């Protein structure tokens, strides 16, 4: 059962190299999906999952410790909370500027961009929040599930 876990560094060069090559592209694609959610399929969730998957791929190929050099546990913790906080924060901000909760058009009072444009931009802001949350949580879930909660060794 544990034979898969016992990979040591340097054994599977092809995987490592290809992962190293792919991960940046995956990440860019993830960002693209988040940002381009307005115009094509995708959005915060999908992009977040893709971003998270890139880190999971790193962890799979190089071990958990290595992946935690790209995103440390404490940074991950901050991201965990930052994501929902962005979403809720945008909502609260709307109420502070005289609108109802999550009524992005109210933010026009903050920076006048135009009511409809603010709606569009508000959706974007919110999607970023979702993306951050989903990415970090997916990584967190993987770390925990694959290490039984210790978050030190991977599969």
């Amino acid at each position, binding site marked *: 059962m544990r034979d898969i876990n016992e990979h040591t560094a340097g054994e599977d060069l092809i995987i490592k190299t290809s992962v190293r090559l792919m991960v940046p592209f995956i990440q860019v694609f993830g960002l693209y999906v988040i940002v381009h959610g307005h115009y094509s399929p995708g959005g915060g969730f999908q992009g977040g999952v893709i971003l998270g998957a890139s880190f999971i791929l790193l962890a799979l190929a190089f071990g958990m410790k290595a992946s935690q050099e790209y995103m440390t546990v404490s940074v991950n*913790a901050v991201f965990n*909370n930052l994501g*929902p906080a962005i979403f*809720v924060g945008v909502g609260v901000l709307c*109420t*502070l500027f005289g609108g109802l*909760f999550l*009524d992005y*058009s109210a933010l026009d009072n903050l920076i006048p961009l135009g009511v409809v444009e603010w709606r569009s931009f508000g959706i974007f802001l919110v999607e970023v929040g979702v993306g951050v949350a989903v990415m970090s949580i997916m990584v967190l879930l993987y770390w925990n599930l694959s290490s039984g909660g210790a978050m030190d060794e991977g599969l």
Partner: protein
Amino acid sequence: MNATNLHLFVLVVPLLAALAINLLGRRSRQWIAPLVLGSLAFSVFGSVIIMARVVEYGTLRYTVGNWQPPYGIELVVDPLSALMMVLIAVVALLASFSSLKSVEQELPGREHFFFTLYMILIVGLFGLVLTGDAFNLYVLLEITSITTYGLIAMGKGRAALSSFNYIIMGSIAACFYLLGIGYIYILTGTLNMADIARILPTLNAPVATATAIAFVLVGLWIKMAFFPLHSWLPNAYSQAPTGAGTLIAPLMTKVTVYLMVRVIITMYTPALVFTHEWIARGVVWAASLAIICGSVLALGQKDLRRMLTYIIIAEVGYMVGGIFLANANGLTGSILHIVNDAFMTLCLFLVVAAIIYRQGSVSLVSLRGIFRRMPITMAAFTLGAFAMIGVPPTCGFFSKWYLILGGIDGGHWEFVVALIVSSLINAVLFFRIIELGYFGSLPDGDNQEHAIDERREAPWWMLSPLVLTAVILIVVGLSTGPLVNNVIRLMIPVGF
């Protein structure tokens, strides 16, 4: 802060607090208590104001994102949901005092996780009572479920297994609910509850409507552990960490019952749900069975906490039965019992928490002579027990009053008998414990060992909410009249 957004802030503040607890609590435990208590105090304050406003001006409707319903999601604060908000806020605040202490003892190092989940559970409960959208309800139901899974699984030993069973049952429940909503959606094309209530009676689709109602109700019944579907509850509630139990036990089933009331009254309209008299009659029979079985099963338990969980099952029978009596008194009784049972359960679970904090166990054997060691705790326990039995003027009596009256009005004598029998069984259950605690470890009746049991009350941190809850039991009981006239009466649909 804009006053119209207040009820949203009741929900958002604990949510932000949850995030803050997670972030700051990691660094130092010092942050947790002020954040939890502060945000919940705000919620209590806010919900009381909302309650006052609703009673004065009538139902508040709020459209999130300023999109008119049914296009956007609507939040509806009618007297019933305002009442539930106050209930949740008060119970959560009282429970959190005790939880802070017991979590410190039971789950050192995991306090910030615990309280993050704890606060989000409260947020989810607030959301559930506020929302006027059927799908939003599903999402919030899942929030409360997931947090509850997590909280329960944090317990020791068998807790993980109980939690897993709960996950399976909870998922089935949620899926059933979602299926029912799907059927409703395909028939009406809308998800707004008021809208559904408007459209549904005009449709000519009896079978699909009935299926939808059935699935939503069965989903909720699983969630509230209505009798034949109750098997997950006793293990889950009795093995959860003590701090989680004090919050989950009083609120989860009660809020689910509230949802059932909401679904029946404002989504499906009573006319549709109670079309077939034999169905309502069957549910009342099932409820009577639930009451009797819950009580009898409670008799067989050797642990106070487990015993209480079975009593919860019986109490669910009270409430479901009361609603399906399909008359004004029954419905009033059910809604009143939601409030009363929440406080009664809170009181008893706070007692459990206090005892566990001091002696680690609430098995009946370990309760011998407890009156001498923890007199104040046990005085509160006695009050809670009286409320459960239904001794006036504690609140438990008055909801039972309405329920029995509803049973008499509707000619449901089986329900009346079940209620009375369960009161009697409750009396046996609780006096067994009171007797144990009172007579102590003196099998042969000599009283020489008085001095050995020294007094060891739980810390004030746990004791004061307990005493307060015990007082609330009587206060709520005595204010039944205003409660019914100003709040619950307004919710009884016409034609009842």
